Every structure is written in C-alpha cells, then in structure tokens.
C-alpha cells in the first residue's frame, strides 16, 4: 500500500478533527482571497477616479503653480491655444481636457466657499462622462452660457435649487475680484464622496472671461489611448518646444501619493496574509500533533516493521497536505462564489467615506482574478505544508520500543 493511500485513509479515521483543520484553512483562503479582491477593487476604482475626474493620465501645469496653489495663482497658467496645437501632433492621445480651477465664494447671508472648475463640457462628456452623472436638468447650453452645474450635495449645502440664480465672487488672474451671476442648469451626483462635496462646473470660455484669464488655463489633462505607455508619452510631451520649459508634466501616479501608498500597502497585505495562514495552520499543527500522540503505538509498529523515519514523516505530512489542498481548493471556490455578487453589486462604504479626502467611490466592487485565486491557493498550501512539517518530523524521532511501551 502506498504512503499516499495510507495518508488518505488516515484522514477519515477521525473525520471531525480533519474537518476542523480543513475548515480553518478554507476560511483563511476564502478571507484572504476576498481581501485581495477588495484591495484590487479599491485600487482599480481609485485609478479610474483619479484619471477620469482629477488628473487624467498626464497633467500639464505651470511649474510653479503647485508650490503656490494655496494662493490661487491664476497668473501661473498654461497657454491653451499653443499647447493644444503642440499636443495635436502627438500619437496616442485620446482626449485633452483643459480646466481652470477657481475657488469661489457664494455671497448670501454669509460667505460660503466652493471650488468651481471651468471646463469644456463637450470634452468632459468624453473625458469624465459628465453627462452620465447628470441627475437633473442639463449641461450648459453653449460655451458662452452663464450656467453652472452643481452636485446635489452642494445644492443642499448652499440651500439653492435647480434653475435658481447664484452670484459667485472669485479672485481674478491679476489678483482683483470679480463676481458673476449663474443659473443652476444641472445637478450632478458622483460616486465619489470627495467629488460630491466640491464639484461645480461652468463653461471654459465663461471661466476664462470671469477670471480674466485670456488664453490661460490652470491645467491641461490628457487621457491616453489604451495600451499607451503614459510615462513615455509624458517624456514626449516634455520634449515639445512649446512645453519644454516652465511646465510641470507628470503622470497621475507621480502626482497622487495615496495610490502609491496603496501599491506599497499591497506588499504589507501579502505579509498579513501569510500571518493569517500561519494562524489558521495552528489548527492543523495541533491536529497533526494530536494524531502523532494518539497513534504512538501505530508509529512504533510501523517502525518495528521497518518503516524508515523519513517515511513516517512523509505519511503524516501527506495526511495534512491532502487536508490543506482540499480545504484551500474549496476555500478558493467559496471565495469566488462569495466574491461574485460583491464584484457585481459592490460593498457600500458611502457612509464611512463621507468627509474622507480619498478618491475612492462610496460603493467599492471587488476585483476577482484568476491570478489572485491561484496565488492565494498556492500560498495556502505552501504555508500549511511548512507549518505541518514540524509535528510530522516529531513522529519520525519516536523510537519503536518507546512507542510500543506507551499506553
């Protein structure tokens, strides 16, 4: 009879104990798979939000703008016409979205602050799919319409309604002030809490006139076509004579530190997963140790019959390994079964995300992948196997005489 057959049969000698060990591995595998799915889902969501709403794949700004951003330095802008002409010749660009960020005050009984962005709505339909997030009303009718779209959250905060008129006070490029009256023509609702608390859009041309920007914009966002290397493209843009000096050209990853933190955190999560598996493996270690002590006479008999110490180790190791393999497999399947509805419908964190400055959507969808499933399955088996090696080796050190004498 082969060792494998013997080990397999031994599993069923105490079904409850084997089941307990299996369940521990199964739960660990399933949980880690779901955790990895959640982190991947968050990362994907954050990447999409950062590119679509905030930074594009590449952002062009005046080199000094970021340093003085707190002072709203509109004079440190990017010339729109010459930049657009220069960018037109570059292959691989999908959309170019020029924007002007304007901190504004709504003067009513008290001054309420909000950040308005002057954008080209036709471009934004393609860039951030702004029309998809329009819940009521419409987008401004023309590039010269003095109309504004606000988020529902801002509408409530400012205590105004659709079609109301609001007068906003801003600082102009030359440091002076200007006020303009806008009709609220549309209401937006974004999936990201941070966007909902700050998004208000006016037409780009109106914004340029309002802030006396002439041909300047505060930033130009570029969305690349799929499979285009954004780093390489950023380098190409930096070589353009029109944008060679005085401009900051960065990819979204270079700008956003939180995403980089996510990537770093992923490494930490792998360590956490290993610790989690080791904890789960204590159950199987415990079970194997109990089996070794329980079958002391049997080990003695096997030794007396001529079975080598290594073979005895293998026997117990195989027994635990079979349990770990089956449990990890079932855990991976269970993880995917639980994960599929969470990947479709997502987990609602919107309550917890309110007031948090993070570009993650309120509803986060899990991202399940075959790579993660195989990786977690293998982790589970490797960690369990390593853990079970210790008690299995103990069985090999037992002398047949001592084993046979034991009660």
């Amino acid at each position, binding site marked *: 009879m082969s060792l494998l057959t013997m080990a397999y049969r031994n599993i069923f000698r105490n079904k409850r104990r084997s089941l307990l060990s299996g369940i521990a591995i199964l739960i660990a595998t399933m949980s880690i798979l779901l955790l990895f799915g959640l982190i991947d889902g968050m990362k994907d969501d954050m990447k999409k939000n950062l590119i679509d709403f905030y930074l594009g794949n590449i952002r062009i700004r005046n080199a000094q703008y970021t340093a*003085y951003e707190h002072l709203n330095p509109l004079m440190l802008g990017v010339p729109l016409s010459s930049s657009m002409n220069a960018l037109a010749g570059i292959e691989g660009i999908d959309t170019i979205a020029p924007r002007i960020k304007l901190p504004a*005050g709504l003067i009513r009984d008290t001054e309420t602050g909000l950040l308005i962005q002057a954008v080209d709505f036709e471009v934004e339909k393609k860039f951030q799919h702004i029309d998809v997030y329009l819940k009521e009303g419409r987008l401004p009718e023309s590039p010269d319409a003095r109309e504004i779209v606000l988020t529902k959250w801002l509408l409530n905060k400012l205590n105004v309604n659709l079609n109301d008129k609001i*007068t906003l006070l801003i600082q102009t*490029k030359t440091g*002076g002030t200007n*006020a303009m009256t806008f009709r609220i023509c549309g209401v937006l609702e974004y999936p990201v809490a941070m966007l909902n608390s700050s998004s208000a859009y006016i037409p780009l041309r109106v914004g340029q006139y309002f802030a006396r920007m002439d041909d300047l914009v505060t930033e130009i966002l570029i969305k690349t076509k799929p499979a285009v290397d954004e780093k390489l493209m950023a380098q190409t843009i930096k070589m353009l004579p029109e944008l060679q000096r005085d401009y900051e050209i960065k990819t979204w990853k270079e700008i956003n530190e939180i995403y980089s933190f996510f990537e770093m955190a992923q490494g930490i999560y792998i360590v956490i997963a290993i610790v989690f598996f080791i904890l789960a493996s204590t159950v199987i270690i415990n079970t194997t140790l109990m089996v070794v002590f329980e079958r002391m006479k049997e080990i003695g008999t096997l030794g007396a019959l001529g079975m080598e110490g290594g073979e005895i180790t293998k026997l117990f190791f195989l027994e635990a390994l079979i349990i770990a393999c089956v449990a990890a497999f079932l855990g991976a399947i269970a993880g995917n079964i639980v994960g599929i509805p969470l990947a479709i419908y997502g987990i609602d964190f919107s309550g917890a995300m309110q007031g948090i400055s993070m570009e993650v959507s309120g509803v986060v969808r899990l991202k399940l992948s075959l790579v993660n499933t195989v990786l977690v399955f293998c982790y589970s088996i490797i960690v369990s196997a390593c853990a079970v090696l210790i008690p299995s080796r103990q069985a090999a050190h037992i002398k047949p005489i001592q084993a046979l004498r034991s009660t």
Partner: protein
Amino acid sequence: MLNKITKCVVSSVAVIFVAVLVQAQSAEDIIRRYEQNQNIKTMSASGKIVIYNQFGIQEKAFKIWSRGTDDSLIVFTSKDESGQKILRSKKAVYLYYPDAEEIIRLQGAALRNSLAGSDLSYEDMTGGKSILDQYVIESISEEVIDTTACWVIKIKAKVNDIPYPIQKLWIDKKTYALKKSEAYSLAEKLLKTVYVKDYTSIGGFVIPSHIVVQDNLKKQTKTELILETIRINEALDPNLFSLQNLSM
C-alpha cells in the same frame, strides 16, 4: 525731615501727573488737528493702485469720490476691473460687478478680504468715526522720519468691534498730516504698515497722495496707492453715493 520728604515726593508726583496730563491733552489735540486736516467736505480724484507681490506688479486705475468721512465711491477704470464699483456708506460696504445681477453687501469676515488683490482690505475703508471715540491714547513721543519731525502717538481701542486694536500714528509736527502708521493686534503683532511718501496741498488741506501699504501678514507684498488730479470741496451729485446709482 520726614514731612519734607513726603512733601517733596507728593509735589514730584503731582508735577509728573500734571506733565502726563498736559501731554495726554496735547496728544488729543494732535489727533484732533490731524482729523481736522481730513475734514474735507467733498473730494474727487483719479488714481491707481500698484500691487507688488511674488507674481509681479499689477496696476489698477480708479476714480474716487468722497463726501465727509462716511461716504465714498470707487469706480475702477482699468481693463480687467472696468466698471467695478465699491460704495462705502456709514453703514456698510457694497460691491458692484457689471457681470453680477446682484449687489454684494460685505459684512463680517468678508470685510477682511483684500481690496482688488492689494494689501488694503475693505475693512480699511470702513469707519468714519473719530479716533478719539474709538481709541484711548496710550503714549506720546517724538521721532524723525525721513527728515520729518513727527509725534508718535500710540492708541488702544476702547471698543471691541474694531479691525486694529492697537495703532501707532506718526503725525507730522508741521502739517498734522499722517506720515506713517502701524496697526497691531491685541497681542501687539504687527498687522499693517502705512507710509505716506508724498502729499498734495490743496485748499489749505494736506492730502496724502502717494501711500505705501504693507500687509505684514503676507509675504513679499506691498501696495502703492497713488492719487492724481485731486479736487476738493466741489459740488457732487447727491445720488452719487446711493445704492440705486451703484448699478447704473
């Protein structure tokens, strides 16, 4: 002996007290003379604000009309601010912008905002009340600034709702015009410095015509306020300082 010493001390204290009293009175007189110099019935002028900051130099042209110490109207004439108006009445500051359908009444914290991006705030425009109604004199001394002999009078607010709780005024001994002023917070932190570079003498009044203002809470900024073509005590349209006129 003891009686003599007591008498001596009492008489010395009395002399010092009388001297301080005399000086305090003269400080009040100086303030009154200084305010008298500002007591112009009407004034109109054109001028410019030159703002220096880390981003360069900005120039904004304007016309100004004032009536007494309470009412004034500023109309900007430079390209970027063309048509913008600031009306100050006894009660409030109002802003008119050609692209806004409503007149903005500034109050509370909004008054602390910068006027046209300069080192001046709207708050600096408010309050036509006499200095002596709002402040008490803390001390008086003398100093020469740029060959101009000045009284240096330190005043402390006796009311709460005031932009600058403590001020130091350098008043020209000859003309009783302001040469320099420093505004401080209650904790005596320097908030703003005003320095008068040039004056225009007209109709017996000495009017500061080139003023340098520095907001000491900001870095690398200063504002020059230059008044040209000053005319005083001419008849002005009584509706000039009305809200109705603001949006016309």
